[in-house]
């Protein structure tokens, strides 16, 4: 599946929910599917510190594709991180650096993307793009 196909699927899933609490229940559930970052990678360099919650992110580059493992100390953030990882993992650096992540806005969690909220997710997306750009230049060499 392409990045956008995965995003569309998420948006469709969220269309089923009637109220916010159902939505959050699902998000929290999704957090449990997150491929967890190994303890050894929970280093200060891999920590993305927001004002409220923390996110750890680790990227691996194999056979031209990036995979991510991550964790967060807040469950809602963890659920969102899980979706981002699911959407982007297994794609090429080029696909990732060019991807436009619209699903977070479309499922109504845009507040998580505002830099003022700085809960880690916003900075995590920037970090992922940076990894992607770094690895794409590597791939070209």
């Amino acid at each position, binding site marked *: 599946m392409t990045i956008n196909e995965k995003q569309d699927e998420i948006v469709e899933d969220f269309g089923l929910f009637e109220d916010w*609490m159902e939505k*959050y229940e699902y998000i929290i559930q999704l957090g449990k599917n997150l491929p967890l970052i190994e303890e050894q990678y929970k280093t200060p360099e891999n920590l993305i510190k927001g004002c409220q*919650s923390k996110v750890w992110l680790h990227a691996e580059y194999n056979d031209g594709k990036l995979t991510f493992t991550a964790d967060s*100390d807040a469950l*809602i953030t963890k659920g969102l991180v899980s979706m981002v990882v699911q959407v982007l993992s297994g794609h090429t650096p080029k696909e990732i650096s060019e991807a436009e992540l619209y699903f977070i806005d479309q499922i109504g969690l845009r507040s998580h993307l505002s830099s003022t909220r700085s*809960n880690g997710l916003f900075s995590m997306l920037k970090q992922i793009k940076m990894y992607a750009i770094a690895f794409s230049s590597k791939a070209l060499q």
Partner: protein
Amino acid sequence: MFNDNDTLTTKKAHRGIDQIRADFPILQTTVYGHPLVYLDNAATTQKPNVVLKAMDDYYKIYNSNIHRGVHYLSQKATDAFEVARRRVQEYINAKHEHEIIFTKGTTEAINLVASSFGKRYVKPGDTIMISELEHHSNIIPWQLMCEDRGASLKVIPINEKGELKMEAFDALLDETVKLVAVSFVSNTLGTVNPVKEIIEKAHARNIPVMLDAAQAIQHVGIDVQFLDVDFLAFSGHKMYGPTGVGVLYGKESLLNEMPPYQGGGEMIKTVSFEKSTYNVLPFKFEAGTPNVAEVIGLEVAINYINSIGLDFIREREQQLITYALGQLQEIDELRFIGEAAERAASISFLVGDTHPFDVGELLDKQGIAVRTGHHCTEPLMNIFKIPGTVRASFAFYNTEEEIDKLVKGVKKAAVLLG
């Protein structure tokens, strides 16, 4: 305390809570389809119609620059501005009108004192005493000044309830201390500090005291002459007034000795390229065109508080706090952060292992506004070894019904996050 209604009627409870709530347009609104439950009053309070109208009137009817115009509007605006100064003076019972300096908020007032007092009185090796409870705005200005002057900070520790350890305070108070700067009420824990005792002990050694009253001014009556406090800072927006206006009270003798904080119009007597001379108090510390509309709004906010009655406000908020503490206590795994015997209208808590941010977000979607995070008191959170708290903070316009909604909301969040 909760069945004290007889006393309340003698303390200006001349209107019912519904009528009081009707004064605040925002309390009639809904968020995510729920009636707004606003429990973030320690961050900022809502504004009554009279304040909004006063600011609107200024811009519509007599907007003009103050203190210099010869024309009618300028005179009218100047009068309103100076009436506001007298109103603040009365409200905190300052001896002189010119001891009231308008700033843009508590933060600026503290920065002003740190900068000007520091330049005049602080030398290498000196210390400034603060406490572990302080908001960043009562830490960083002193840190900046200390770095500049070769001085350092002394920090009064707290006990596990979130109260200042007064015996440690006594021990720390030595001849190196040039100023004690502490909060009157903790913004995170709601602890009310023994400020009278602190001031008496510091004064016994001729050390002046500055109080950060940002979280006190809206809850308790403050008499600066009774306290004999040297500097006091507070913000308009936490006392039902507008943002962008605050007050620094300072004793005349100290303010006269201190150099100006900022240069500009209004604060000068004569200007030449060789040497300028400065205006008298309070104008010496009020460079530039002030926030006229906001100052006028603050005056009306004080009038509004007086019309409700500070005694009534205090009793009503204590009732709400007592009720909230009792109800929240019933929630499994809920623990309070800070359990000071003397507290004002804030409660900080955590539920089990849940992250405060998650609880706050789930409350938000139920229409309940609370604050989560470190509340600009990172050192304090480090002492408790927690990433932050959920803080519910109350005002007299809150109701027991709203607290019930908070409790229900927290229970729902706990289930989802469990």
